[in-house]
């Protein structure tokens, strides 16, 4: 019964969305068709907000003057847009784009703006009920931003420590991803047997559901039952001199959480880089290597002067993506260090942000924190892309 009801619920929702899309298309279609008629401006200004209001009244069960004024303003904007900017041209592309961009506006742009709004107010566990019932939150000005730099997002670690840790985390991960991926891709790019089979095995960490992969790896780092410590203790038993060098089983999860997370994430991330680089390597025509052989280049010279420059157009976007992904990687850290009561020693900016919001319930604080992190990432990306463009033009 439950299953039937869930199917019914979801299909109903999809039908609702389809109806919404149809309404949207119809709405824009009539704007395209009649935007230049003299009667259309006042008629549309009356008809569409009234219609929207009727629908919203039916759904929410009551007249809402604020909603009405929003609709009125939106309609005015759309009308003005058609009269002065679009002028009824380019009907087809705008109709094709409308659903996707309304979706993006509602679920990407609006949340973003809402986040900015939150960051200037004070929403926390004590004020959230008030917000839920009345829609009002106390104004806080720049307080949240000041707090981001002065108080700890969690219980002890400071913003600056988190920033440093994030940079270290991002850099070391991307470095090992590229180095490991490159090495494996070079090995696989030889004419060897079982190539396809090896490749299949090597992409398994990427192919596994991340939650399973991370939780499984976390198990392997368990101090007693984990594979890593079992191997370490067997090694020290067999070769006692290792123990004297300080090598032995350790409490990975509580003593070295960041290192553990890094090892796990490197394990997870190498296959993607390997696949991308392998694709790039295979697209390099072998005639370049033949020519280099005739010119008498050694293996490393070929690597340096042919492979690297030719792989760069494939590698750069992958590295850019990888950097952003690693910077934003909450999954690994959150899943490894757990939720409340977990250690803070492995947290990076984004995981602290998530924990501040949902473990410590400091909503507005985390919003301000998020804006700061976004600004940081934006700044880094823009600088980086500028450098990338400049490098592109040089070539």
């Amino acid at each position, binding site marked *: 019964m439950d299953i039937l009801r869930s199917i019914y619920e*979801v299909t109903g929702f999809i039908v609702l969305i389809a109806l919404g899309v149809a309404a949207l298309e119809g709405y824009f279609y009539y704007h395209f068709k009649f935007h230049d008629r003299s009667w259309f401006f006042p008629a549309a200004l009356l008809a569409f907000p009234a219609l929207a209001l009727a629908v919203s009244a039916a759904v929410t069960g009551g007249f809402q003057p604020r909603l009405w004024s929003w609709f009125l303003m939106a309609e005015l904007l759309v009308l003005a847009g058609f009269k002065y900017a679009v002028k009824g041209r380019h009907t*087809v592309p705008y109709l094709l784009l409308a659903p*996707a961009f309304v979706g993006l506006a509602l679920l990407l742009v609006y949340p*973003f703006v809402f986040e900015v709004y939150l960051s200037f107010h004070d929403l926390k566990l004590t004020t959230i009920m008030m917000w839920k019932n009345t829609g009002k939150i106390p104004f806080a000005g720049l307080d949240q931003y000041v707090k981001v730099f002065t108080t700890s997002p969690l219980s002890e670690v400071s913003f600056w420590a988190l920033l440093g840790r994030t940079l270290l985390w991002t850099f070391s991960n991307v470095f090992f991803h590229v180095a490991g991926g490159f090495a494996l891709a070079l090995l696989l790019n030889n004419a060897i047997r079982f190539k396809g089979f090896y490749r299949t095995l090597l992409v*398994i960490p990427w192919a596994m559901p991340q939650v399973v992969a991370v*939780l499984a790896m976390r198990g392997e780092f368990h101090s007693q039952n984990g594979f890593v410590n*079992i191997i370490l203790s067997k090694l020290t038993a067999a070769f006692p001199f290792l123990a004297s060098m300080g090598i032995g089983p350790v409490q990975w999860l509580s003593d070295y959480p960041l290192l553990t997370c890094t090892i796990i994430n490197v394990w997870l991330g190498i296959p993607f880089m390997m696949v991308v680089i392998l694709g790039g390597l295979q697209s390099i025509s072998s005639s370049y290597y033949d020519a280099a052989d005739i010119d008498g280049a050694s293996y490393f010279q070929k690597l340096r002067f042919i492979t690297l420059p030719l792989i760069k157009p494939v590698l750069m976007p992958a590295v850019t993506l990888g950097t952003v992904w690693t910077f934003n990687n909450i999954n690994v850290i959150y899943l490894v260090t757990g939720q409340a009561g977990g250690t803070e020693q492995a947290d990076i900016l984004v995981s602290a942000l*998530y924990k501040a919001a949902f473990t410590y319930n400091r909503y507005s604080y985390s919003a301000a924190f998020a804006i700061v992190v976004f600004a940081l990432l934006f700044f880094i990306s823009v600088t980086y892309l500028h450098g990338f463009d400049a490098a592109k033009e040089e070539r």
Partner: protein
Amino acid sequence: MSEKDAIERRRTVKYLLIHAVIILAAAICVYPLLRIFSVSLRPGDKLFSTDLSLIPDGATFKAYASLLKDTMFLRWLWNSLLITLATSFIGVSLASTAAYAFSRFRFPGKKAGLILLLSSQMIPAGMLILPLFLMIMKLKLMNTYLGMIIAYSVSSLPFSIWILKGYYDTIPRSLEEAALVDGTSQVGAFWRIILPLSTPALSIAFLFNFTTAWNEYLVARVVLFSSKQYTWTLGLFELQGQYITQWGMFAAGSMLVTIPVLAVFLYSSKWLISGLTLGSVKG
């Protein structure tokens, strides 16, 4: 002759070395999966042994049985499947038309739209969870499928649009022109010619949407709170969670969700990779 032998020997050594390194790397990649498998087969009293053998003594499927019987694992899978299918369907439909507009038409705002898509990739994933969570709360959709679908549906949209645009760009325009001469409208040409031809790219986009939503954990964590509504990621985390007693069931559940995903992934990996390179390189 002897020189030839030396070259031959060196080549053999090189090959053996390459194989050895790759096999070691492959072992590291596969081992955790095999370990889960082995743990899932362990009888209840040996869960915490330090035994490293793959098939443990007294191997049993009891963990699987109790997982399916004593927990709501099937229900979790069903929840995940429903949410994921719905979001992928919505995401791909929206992306397919938007990508077509970007690929074939010139219109004011095209560049701005593409920049918006690209820069949306820069927004930290964790950043939008909070406002979405508050929106879903305000819409009274907490702990529902709809809340999850709303939260997921546009998350992969920019990437899907990008992939599909790249693919549409490779389809010659003359096909649509021929269709126009044959008597379709612009939209008809898209529906009857471009969409059927784009099945590979649509599958990639669908797969991408699917895996993203299927493996999602962080949003589910804050939107869903009754175990009946859990997705499998939440359920699995719960099993491993603080009470390490459920280790065997966790392993069994992991195997059950991993094997189909792995199969689909390996089957489609060639497409997926070509799609990724298409999206990134062509840019």
